[in-house]
């Protein structure tokens, strides 16, 4: 077995056993990143720092002071601030921004001894579902030519799927971990809102944003989440709830597990083959002794509309700090203050970001606030109630992650609404703040399909258990795109 196809779990065992050093391992992945630069999954590769960190990791490993993840390479979505390293958020606006501090998540992975190989491509400011809004050009889906990897964590998904790194961080505001994980055939987890610190994670929509792991397996996702999760005094919205041992319950039996299938997930909008793939996956759970229960979430159809008021409203304010005054892009020779603002922001932001800023600014304007923002918040509450009600009767909710497998590059860029509707199954989960996973569950036309598993608040351990058991009886997660094995 070649090294780069191994899981975190296997790499950890090998490193501890001295099969190879962290420096050797790091070099393997750095070489692959270089070989497959055409995927455009990285915005920055931090080779020098990576080699230096690997050296330190080797010292720890030799001394027997290593922890489980010490010496294993990974990479961060370019939305996480990394001290001394460009943190672009996929935007021209921050192309010159060298973060002077680390995000809490970055600090945590550093403390765990993982080796960051660089920063991963993403949709500009995490606004997009295809990675096509990135200032650095789209990352490509390794499974099929000219196909999007999904977004906004497209670089993370493409790099893990192509085995350029064993695992990565992502963020999910409306599906940005789950959808690219589904499109690229990897395992992604969006934790409960508040489970992972948002400090140093450049804000898109603060009440929806949540960082999480993207990996090959549920087992690896558990190891990653173990490192990321926990209260952070620097993030008032992070939860003080104790973090359980996510690996401890992976092998719990699913006998008697109650799975809810929302009928609204399986209506006419869903591609037939996708519906069939999900049904096949659900049947696997039946075989493991799970009980299937139909549930209804009548307000789900309102989710996309509510999301596209709340998220733009928050982003319109969040992005106001990008003004060309203290950091980021500044236009040449501004004539006066207005000119400085207008041209710096006009030049620095791409069209999708501008569109959402405009929508959000409008929704918050005097006279429209009640009609849009307040109404959207009411819908948000109704959707949350739909979920919590359903989760009173079932343990997890299952459904598709996306209506179709990965689409072609350029296929949906002309019609933003069509692009937005592709997030229909993921968005509601963010509005409710619930945890959810995307697990590889087959292929349509050689393109991966994701099964979505949604759980109750802080039930990440349950989700990982449910996903891991599926991965014990299927091998979808072990499939690799041709040319990247």
């Amino acid at each position, binding site marked *: 077995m070649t090294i780069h196809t191994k899981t975190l779990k296997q790499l950890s065992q090998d490193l501890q056993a001295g099969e190879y050093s962290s420096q050797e391992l790091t070099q393997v992945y750095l070489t692959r990143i270089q070989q497959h630069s055409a995927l455009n999954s990285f915005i920055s590769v931090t080779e020098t720092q990576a080699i230096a960190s690997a050296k330190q990791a080797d010292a720890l490993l030799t001394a027997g002071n290593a922890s489980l993840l010490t010496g294993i390479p990974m990479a961060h979505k370019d939305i*996480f*601030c990394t001290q001394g390293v460009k*943190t672009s*958020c996929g935007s021209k606006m*921050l192309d010159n*921004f060298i*973060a*002077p*501090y680390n*995000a809490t998540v970055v600090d945590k992975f550093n403390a765990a001894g993982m080796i960051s190989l660089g920063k991963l491509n993403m949709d500009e400011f995490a606004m997009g579902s295809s990675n096509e809004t990135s200032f650095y050009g789209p990352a490509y889906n390794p499974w099929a030519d000219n196909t999007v990897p999904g977004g906004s964590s497209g670089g993370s998904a493409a790099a893990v799927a192509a085995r350029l790194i064993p695992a990565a961080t992502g963020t999910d505001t409306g599906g940005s971990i789950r959808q690219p994980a589904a499109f690229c055939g990897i395992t992604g987890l969006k934790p409960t809102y508040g489970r992972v610190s*948002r*400090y*140093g*994670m*450049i*804000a898109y*929509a*603060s*009440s929806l944003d949540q960082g999480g792991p993207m990996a090959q397996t549920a087992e690896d996702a558990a190891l990653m989440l173990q490192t990321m999760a926990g209260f952070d*005094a*620097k*993030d*008032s*919205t992070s939860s003080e709830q104790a973090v359980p041992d996510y690996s401890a319950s992976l092998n719990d039996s699913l006998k008697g597990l109650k799975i809810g299938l929302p009928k609204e997930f399986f209506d006419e909008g869903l591609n037939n083959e996708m519906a069939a793939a999900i049904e096949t996956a659900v049947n696997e759970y039946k075989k493991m002794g799970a009980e299937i229960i139909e549930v209804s979430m009548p307000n789900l159809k309102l989710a996309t509309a509510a999301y596209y008021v709340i998220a733009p*409203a*928050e982003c*319109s*304010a969040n*992005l*106001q*700090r*990008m*003004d060309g*005054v*203290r*950091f*980021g892009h500044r236009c040449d020779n501004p004539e006066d*203050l207005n000119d400085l*603002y207008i041209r710096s922001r006009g030049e620095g932001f791409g069209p999708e970001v501008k569109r959402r800023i405009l929508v959000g*600014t409008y929704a*918050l*304007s*005097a006279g429209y*606030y009640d009609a849009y*923002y307040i109404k959207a918040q009411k819908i948000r509450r109704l959707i949350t109630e739909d979920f919590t009600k359903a989760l009173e009767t079932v343990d997890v909710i299952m459904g598709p992650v996306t209506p179709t497998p990965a689409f072609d590059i350029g296929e949906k860029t002309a019609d933003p609404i069509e692009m937005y509707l592709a997030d229909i199954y993921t968005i509601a989960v963010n509005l409710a703040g619930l945890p959810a996973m995307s697990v590889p569950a087959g292929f349509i036309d050689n393109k991966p399909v994701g099964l979505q598993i949604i759980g109750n608040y802080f039930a990440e351990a349950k989700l990982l258990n449910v996903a891991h058991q599926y991965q014990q009886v299927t091998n979808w997660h072990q499939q690799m795109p041709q040319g990247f094995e």
Partner: protein
Amino acid sequence: MQWETVIGLEIHAQLSTKTKIFSAASTAYGAEPNTQACAVDLGLPGVLPVLNQEAVRMAVKFGMAIEAEIADYSVFARKNYFYPDLPKGYQISQMDHPIVGVGHLDIEVEGQTKRIGVTRAHLEEDAGKSLHESFHGSTGVDLNRAGTPLLEIVSEPDMRSAKEAVAYMRKIHELVQYLDISDGNMQEGSFRCDVNISLRPKGQEEYGTRAELKNINSFKFVEKAIYTEVERQKEILEAGGSITQETRLYDADKDETRSMRSKEEANDYRYFPDPDLLPVFISPELRAQVKADLPELPEAKKQRFVTDYKLEAETANNLASSRPLADYFEALVKSSGCAAKICSNWVCVELSGALNKQNLSISQSPIDSDRLAQLLQRIADNTISGKIAKQVFEAMWSSQDSADTIIEAQGLKQITDSGAIEAIIDKIIANNPGQVEQYLSGKDKVFGFFVGQTMKASQGKANPGEVNKILQDKLRL
């Protein structure tokens, strides 16, 4: 036509927390530009605000002092606008759910007590400063002040004259210092005020259109600005014109107000709840704690001074109006053991006079209450006379020496030895036979002449009581 002036104030009081309202950076004034601004204050990408609980306590304290409703639940909101000294492009403030609700405060103007309503008080962060000088045509931005906690106190339009407005402003100023929640330093901008003014025909119920005067940071300017603005509005109205709702700036140099922006040009701040901050819940425990910590308020203190120390109402009011002054007075009474009346006289007359002359506050007084206590004790035990005491006080003012040291060094000890005084008096009587004759012929007033001469000859050191006694004995002949 008779016009009635209607005034409401929005006061911004900087809270004296050690660190900023949403970051751990220091709030100290006067540091080198941008040395007290951390990543959060700079609004760098990815940073998040964390609420300083001390600011919450202070706001609750203020609310309790004005007997206001304290909200169980209050919410921070983003107020959006672009300006170079506003790093995030929004100010974190409060809109729909302020921490302090409806309260009130009593003011006194020309002997009349009047109750002024407080609509609300809310917490917010201050912006930085734009520096337009010495940057070669560019503007410099100093973000040291960015994120400093402010309490914005909004009054009802209950004031009817500049005098009432100033009295209210002074009262709030006095109160925030009393509560130890703000240093009230107006030069440093820790206490500033926006004034809303409108006129209406006397007897009319509904309010006229108002103009808002922005950012005035002295009592004197508030008063002058109101007079000037009232005159301007009156002129317009009497000429049959109408007032435009707008924000105006008071130019103290020219003593005029001028338009900054009209209602139409006003920003749409697009307030919405800040998703980075959780709603603030004020627990019963916190309420109880703050209530227990609440100091004696000026009104109660004044009453106590009248009852316990038998001070005149005016003197009591004068002392109680400032907490450090009241504390000084009480410390003086305690450590000197002298009569409260004497202590209050020294604090209100000698000490306050000297402080005013040099524009010093009581806390900057070169003579602390212990040093002054010793001086008063020396009057009480007849070591020096009251007159000499003033001389000693002056010497103490410009040195670190104690009263005793100065009395000793300058030989100011009172002469109580009757033999010594007798010798002086004998000499004076001998040298002034004409005055002696006048006195003996019934001109009692001449007695004062002898006292004066004796004191003069003794360089003020003769004990006045002793002088009187001996003189009366000698002149009875």
